[in-house]
């Protein structure tokens, strides 16, 4: 099992799938409230939600891109930006805290 393999290909596939899901497929997602929101509305605590937190002013608030009118493009760009932000913050964190094994030559 120790034969060297390229990880780049599988990483690239994962990234492309994530970008397509967030950037393209998300347009076709259901716009119905999710389970929690639905139950909150039904049982009567939805109005306790405070939706005016500071991040409502973010240019990507509610998965749209500020200044882009086309709904498909606006949501798609927001999705791509979200994937990029998550990858940058998560990937950066994980590279920082990983074990660095100088003897390990199986890395990509």
């Amino acid at each position: 099992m120790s034969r060297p393999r390229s990880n780049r290909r599988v990483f690239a596939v994962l990234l492309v799938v994530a970008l397509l899901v967030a950037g393209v497929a998300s347009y076709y997602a259901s716009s119905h409230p999710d389970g929690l929101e639905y139950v909150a509305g039904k049982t009567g605590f939805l109005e306790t939600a405070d939706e005016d937190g500071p991040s409502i002013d973010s240019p990507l608030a509610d998965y749209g891109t500020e200044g882009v009118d086309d709904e498909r493009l606006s949501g798609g760009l927001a999705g791509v930006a979200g994937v990029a932000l998550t990858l940058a913050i998560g990937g950066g964190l994980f590279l920082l805290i990983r074990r660095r094994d100088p003897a390990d030559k199986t890395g990509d």
Partner: protein
Amino acid sequence: MHVPDGFLDAPTSIATGVVAAAGVAVALRKSRDELDDRTAPLAGLVAAFVFAGQMINFPVGAGTSGHLLGGALAAVLVGPWTATLCISVVLLVQALFFADGGLTALGTNITLMGLVGVFVGYAVFLAVRAVLPRRLGVVPAAAAMGALVSVPVAAATFTGLFAVGGNADLDMGEVLTAMLGWHTVIGIGEAVITGLVVSAICTSRPDLVHGARRALAARAADERTDVTTSEVVA
């Protein structure tokens, strides 16, 4: 299941914030054992993949939808401690940039999805895997079971928090029944997505799947035994 600001009172939000901070602090230390030069980039991609997956709300009937939480999926792919960090990063990005999930509720959301979702999902995965044969084909099925259970348990945990510190006085039995009912159906979607993704990666690159290591080790041991046997026969 992103909890907005306002659902829970300040003491409860502070308490879940402390739980989340402690969980993330432990995860930062423990994930070192799961992360090396090979798995660190994979973990970043898993986080990005969970972000994308959470954008896809699927209808579950009666004008309601659900989306992937991703805790069990990430735990099986990259290990539970790294999964807690993956989900926490996703929730942080959503709360900061997408106004999805409140900032004061970030601790609550990390507790529900990054701790309860991840560790319930992973515990069920381990339990199912333990009673099934040590084969690669078992891994996606066990992951799906973990995913299935993780969603209603996270929903029940929210209901418990709401019973303690909810900003509305309600019949909690009614809330619990509704939360469990809908999130069991959403859990089926979670199980299907988790099973398919784990299966796809297990088929192409099982060596990258944290939860498949035991099955791979068993296979390698079998192969070694076969080689030894054939040498003896020869």
